[in-house]
C-alpha cells in the first residue's frame, strides 16, 4: 500500500462527521439485526399459527358429530300394510312417516308429498328396526312398538344450528314446513340429544346419520398388525446386519444407498407396486388389510431400518468390546449385549413408523381400499377400509352431514396418532440411557 492511497488526516469537523456517520451506520445495522430477528420469530409464529388454524378448523368442524339427536317414536305396525307372510314387502319408512304426520296433525295430500317430506326427516334405520322386530316376532303386527333411531342427517344439522332458517329456503335441504315439524317434535320431547355412540359402534353407511367409524378403526388395526408383523422384525434384523455384521464392501454400500433412496420414494409409487405385484401378479385380495399391511410394511421398512441403526449406533462400543473380551461370539455380543440397551430406541422408531403408516392414504387408494364397505372387516382378507381413507371417502360425499363426520374422523385419527406418539415419547423418556 502506498501513501497516496491513504486518506488525508481528518480535521476535527471531519472526525465528528465520521463519528456521526458511523453512529448512523451502527443504528442501521442494529435495525437490520432487529428486523432479521423479527423475521425469524414471525416465521415461527406463522408455522404455529397455521397449526392452530388447522386444529381449530378440524375441531370446529368435527366436534358437533360427536353429539347426535335421537328420535323415539311409537310405531303402530298396521296389519293393513304389513303382511305376516311377507314382512319384507311392506314400506315401513312410509308407514312410519304417515304416522308421524298424524301425530303432528298434518293432512297427507293426495300425492303423498307430505309423507315423503316427513320421511326425509327420519333415518331408514327406523324401518329396518321395525322389519327386524316383525321378522323375529310376527305377533307384533297390530301392536305398537317404540322405536328409537338417529334422526335424519339434515334434521340433525338443523337441531345443531348448522342448517337454520337464516339460509334461504331454496338453498337448504329442508323447507319451512319441515323445520316447523322438527320444532314441534323437539317441543313434544320426542327428540333427545346425546353422545353419538353409533359413530364408534357401526361401520360406514350411505346415510350420514347411520355412518360410523368402527369398520375403519378395525380395518386400520388389522392392517397395522400386518405392517408391524412384517416390517418390525424384517427392519430390525436388516439394521442389525447392516450396522453390526455387514462387511464394508460395494454390495453393502449399494444396499445402504438403496435404503436411503427408498425412504424418499413417493408413497403413491408403493401403491403402484402393490397394485402391479401383489394384486395383479400374486393375486392378493383387493381392499384387504393383508394387502394394505404388506404394502405399508415395505413403505415403512426404510424408516425402521434407519431408526434402528441410529439406536444401535448410540450403544457405546465399550459394551460390545467388553462382551467380546470375555469370550462372547460376535452374534452373542450383539444379541445379548448391544440389542437390549438399544431396544427403547428401536421401539420408539417402530412406533413412530407405524404412526406414519396409520396416516398413509395414497398407496391404499391404489389397492382398492377406497371401496365402500358397510360391514366391519372380519379378518385379514375381507374387504375393509381404514381411517384416513374413510376421511377421504366422507370428504368426497355430497351430503353436508358427512362433512362434520369427516372432521370427527380426523379427530379420531389424530387421537390415535397422539397416543402412539406419546407412547414413543414415554418409552424414550422412561428407558433411554445416555452413555
Amino acid at each position, binding site marked *: 500500500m502506498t501513501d497516496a492511497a491513504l486518506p488525508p488526516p481528518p480535521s476535527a469537523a471531519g472526525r465528528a462527521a465520521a463519528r456521526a456517520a458511523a453512529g448512523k451506520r451502527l443504528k442501521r445495522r442494529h435495525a437490520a439485526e432487529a428486523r432479521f430477528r423479527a423475521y425469524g420469530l414471525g416465521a*415461527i409464529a406463522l*408455522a404455529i399459527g397455521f397449526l392452530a388454524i388447522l386444529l381449530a378448523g378440524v375441531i370446529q368442524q368435527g366436534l358437533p358429530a360427536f353429539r347426535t339427536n335421537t328420535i323415539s317414536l311409537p310405531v303402530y305396525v298396521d296389519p293393513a300394510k304389513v303382511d305376516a307372510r311377507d314382512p319384507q314387502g311392506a314400506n315401513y319408512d312410509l308407514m312410519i312417516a304417515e304416522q308421524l304426520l298424524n301425530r303432528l296433525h298434518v293432512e297427507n295430500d293426495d300425492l303423498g308429498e307430505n309423507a315423503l317430506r316427513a320421511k326425509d326427516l327420519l333415518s331408514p334405520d327406523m324401518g329396518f328396526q321395525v322389519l327386524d322386530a316383525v321378522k323375529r316376532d310376527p305377533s307384533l303386527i297390530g301392536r305398537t312398538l317404540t322405536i328409537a333411531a338417529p334422526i335424519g342427517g339434515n334434521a340433525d344439522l338443523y337441531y345443531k344450528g348448522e342448517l337454520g332458517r337464516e339460509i334461504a329456503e331454496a338453498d337448504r335441504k329442508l323447507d319451512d314446513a319441515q323445520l316447523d315439524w322438527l320444532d314441534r317434535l323437539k317441543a313434544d320431547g320426542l327428540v333427545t340429544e346425546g353422545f353419538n355412540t353409533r359413530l364408534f359402534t357401526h361401520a360406514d353407511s350411505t346415510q350420514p346419520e347411520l355412518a360410523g367409524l368402527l369398520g375403519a378403526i378395525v380395518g386400520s388395526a388389522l392392517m397395522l398388525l400386518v405392517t408391524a408383523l412384517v416390517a418390525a*422384525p*424384517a427392519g430390525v434384523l436388516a439394521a442389525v446386519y447392516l450396522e453390526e455384521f455387514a462387511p464394508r464392501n460395494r454390495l453393502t454400500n449399494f*444396499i445402504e444407498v438403496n435404503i436411503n433412496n427408498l425412504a424418499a*420414494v413417493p408413497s*403413491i409409487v408403493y401403491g403402484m407396486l402393490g397394485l402391479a405385484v401383489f394384486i395383479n401378479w400374486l393375486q392378493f385380495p383387493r381392499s384387504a388389510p393383508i394387502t394394505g399391511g404388506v404394502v405399508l410394511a415395505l413403505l415403512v421398512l426404510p424408516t425402521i431400518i434407519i431408526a434402528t441403526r441410529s439406536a444401535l449406533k448410540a450403544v457405546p462400543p465399550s459394551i460390545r468390546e467388553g462382551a467380546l473380551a470375555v469370550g462372547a461370539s460376535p452374534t452373542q455380543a450383539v444379541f445379548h449385549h448391544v440389542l437390549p440397551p438399544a431396544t427403547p430406541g428401536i421401539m420408539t422408531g417402530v412406533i413412530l413408523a407405524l404412526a406414519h403408516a396409520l396416516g398413509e392414504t395414497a398407496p391404499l387408494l391404489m389397492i382398492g381400499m377406497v371401496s365402500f364397505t358397510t360391514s366391519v372387516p372380519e379378518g385379514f382378507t375381507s374387504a375393509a377400509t381404514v381411517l384416513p381413507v374413510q376421511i*377421504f371417502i366422507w370428504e368426497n360425499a355430497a351430503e353436508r352431514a358427512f362433512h362434520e363426520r369427516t372432521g370427527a374422523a380426523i379427530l379420531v385419527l389424530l387421537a390415535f396418532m397422539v397416543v402412539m406418539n406419546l407412547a414413543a415419547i414415554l418409552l424414550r423418556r422412561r428407558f433411554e440411557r445416555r452413555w
Partner: protein
Amino acid sequence: MFWIAILGLFLFSAAAFGLARRKASDAARAAGRRPNSLPGQQAGYVALWAFTPALILLACLIVFSGRIETGLIEANLPGAAAALEADQKALFVGDVHAIAEGRPTSAATWSGPLATARAAAVDKARDYELLTGWGGVILAGLVAVAGFLLALRRLSPDFTARRHAEGWIHGLLITCSALAVLTTVGIIASLLFESVRFFQVVSPVDFLTGLHWSPQTALREDQAGSAGAFGAVPLFVGTLLIMTIAMVVAAPIGLYAAIYLSEYAGPRLRAWVKPVLEILAGIPTVVFGVFAALTVGPAFAAFFKWIGGNLVGGPLDGVGQYLVQVQPNMALAAGVVMGVMLIPFISSLSDDILNAVPQSLRDGSYAMGATKSETVKKVVLPAALPGVAGAFILAVSRAIGETMIVLLALGSGGGTNLTFNPLDAVSTVTVQIVSLLTGDLEFDRPTTMAAFGLGLTLFVVTLTLNIIALRIVQAYREQYD
C-alpha cells in the same frame, strides 16, 4: 388357516426346543464333560431347524397361494370360458377365484354357457384352494418334523451347535437386508413392465412433449388419434406450478424458523417450538388435504371474489370479471397448504445443517465486530448453503410426489388444461395416477398403462432429486466432520 398353522409351528418349535434341551443335557451328563455348545444352544439349533424351513414354506404359500390357484383355474377352464378373449378370460378367472373365496366379484355378468362354466370352475377352484391350503399346511408340518428329527440326530456333545445356529441367524439377517433391495427391484420392475407396454402404444416423445392430456377419449376405440390425448406436459406444468407455490411458502418460513431456532432461540423456546413443528410434521397428509378442500380453498375463492366484485365496473373490469368466477379448487390453495406441510420438513433439516456449522466460524465473525444477523447472512448461511440446498431439493421431491393434498384440493376431475395461472384448476401427475388407477379397472387398457408411465416419470424424477440431494449433503458433511 395359514395363521393358525404359523401359531402351531411356534408351539411345535417351543416343544422341540424343550425336548432337544433335555436330550442335550442328558447327553452331556452321560459323557461326563462339558459339551462344545451349551444345551440351550444345541436346543436353539434344533428349534431353528424345526421352525425356519417350515416358516419359509408357509410364508411362500401365503404370498403365492393366490397366484398358484389362479394358475390352476386358468389351466383347467371349461371349454366355453377357455375360448374367451384374453382380457375377458382374466376377468372370468378373477371372478371364479373371488367367488370361491367368498369375496365380491367384478361388475361383469356371465350368462348362458359361461354361467354354467363358472359354476363348474368355482367348484374346481374350491378344490384347488383346499389343495393349496391343506396341502401346504401338511407339507409345512412334514418339513418341520423332518427338520426337527434331522437336527436332533446331529446333536452330540462334540457338535458345534452354536456356530451352526449363528450361521442360520446370519442368513436370516442377510435375507432381511435383501428385502429392501427386493422392494426396489419390485418397484422398478412393476413400473417398467407396464410403462414399456404403454410406450409401445404411445411414443415416449409424444408422452413427454404432448400438450394435450385427456386419457378418457382413448377408451373409445373408434376414435382416431387417441395417442394425441396422452401428452403429459399439462400435468408436468401443473405439478411444477403447485411445487413452486409450495416452495415459495415453505422455503422462507422454514429457513427463517430454522435460523431463529438454531441461532437465536434459548433452550426454553426450543423446547416448545420443536415439538410443535414435530406435530405439524406428523399430521397425515389427508388431513392437510381436507383442510385445503374445506377451509383454505373456499376462503381463497371468497377473497378473490370479493376483490373481483370491487373491480367489476371499474377500470380493471376484465380482471374483476375473471376473479369473480374463481373456483375453490385452484392451484394456489393446494400449493399454499402443501407449503404449510413442508415447513417442518425444511426447518428440521435446515436446523440440523445450521447446527453442524462449527462454532469457530461464528466466533471469528463476532470477533470482527459483525452482528448476529450479519454473521448468519455472511458466514453461517454460505457455509451451510450446500446443505440447505440439499434440504430444499428433498422438499421439492416431496412436493412432487405428494398426492392427498392435491387430490383433495383439486379434485380428481380437475382441469387438465395447460396453464400457469395459480388461480386456475390444474391437475398433477399424482392426481392423474390416482384417478386412472382407482375404480374397477382392467389391466390392459392404455389408461392403466398410462398411469404407470406417469409413475415411472415420477419415480425417475424424485429418485434423481434424492440422489443429488444426498450427494450434496454428504459432500458437505465431510467438509466439517
